[in-house]
């Protein structure tokens, strides 16, 4: 099915463990983003990528790592999970400036709980 998917949808992990959240889009969009959403803070940008092998930090990148070896995939890794990383994580994609199209398309989210 075309679109943007995230996996897993729900994850419970323990403090100190490494966790990887997956994001896959079928549109070949240039831009991809990772956000976290917490009550009272809205959506905050963790990392973004303008193209394969090009990534940059967002507002709240500490403790997170990303990679983008293929255009369609943009995994987010929590190197050593902490309780403060309990949140809902959203992946998004966007065509970008060449297409003069800037709207972002969001995945369904991953609810992560760190115990």
């Amino acid at each position, binding site marked *: 099915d075309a679109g943007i998917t995230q996996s897993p949808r729900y994850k419970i992990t323990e403090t100190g463990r490494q966790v990887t959240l997956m994001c896959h889009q079928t549109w070949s969009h240039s831009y991809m983003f990772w*956000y976290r959403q917490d009550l009272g803070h809205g*959506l905050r940008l963790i990392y973004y990528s303008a193209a394969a092998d090009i990534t940059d930090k967002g507002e709240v990148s500490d403790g997170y790592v990303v990679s983008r070896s293929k255009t369609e995939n943009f995994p987010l890794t929590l190197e050593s999970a902490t309780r403060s990383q309990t949140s809902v994580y*959203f992946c998004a994609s966007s065509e970008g400036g060449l297409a003069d199209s*800037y709207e972002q398309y969001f995945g369904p989210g991953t609810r992560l709980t760190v115990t």
Partner: protein
Amino acid sequence: SQKIEQNSEALNIQEGKTATLTCNYTNYSPAYLQWYRQDPGRGPVFLLLIRENEKEKRKERLKVTFDTTLKQSLFHITASQPADSATYLCAPLVEYGNKLVFGAGTILRVKS
């Protein structure tokens, strides 16, 4: 740093009325601003984009205004319906590269 402010309290209106949501931003001048809708347990969905040289944009029952002097965008839903109940997010462009900064959102409740 850039700051985005949306109505922190929920907006409760009667079906058929016009809902008006406010987005104020400070410390920068975005080239464009987007509005998204988010339902509980789901990702945001894009609604409208307005550019800095556009005063107003319409799409069906939706209307967005962008006042770069006041540093404010207003989002209107006319003839509101209970199905319009959701959280609405304002997102001005931070820098080129499609980077947006999102407001915390305003909850809209439309009662029949």
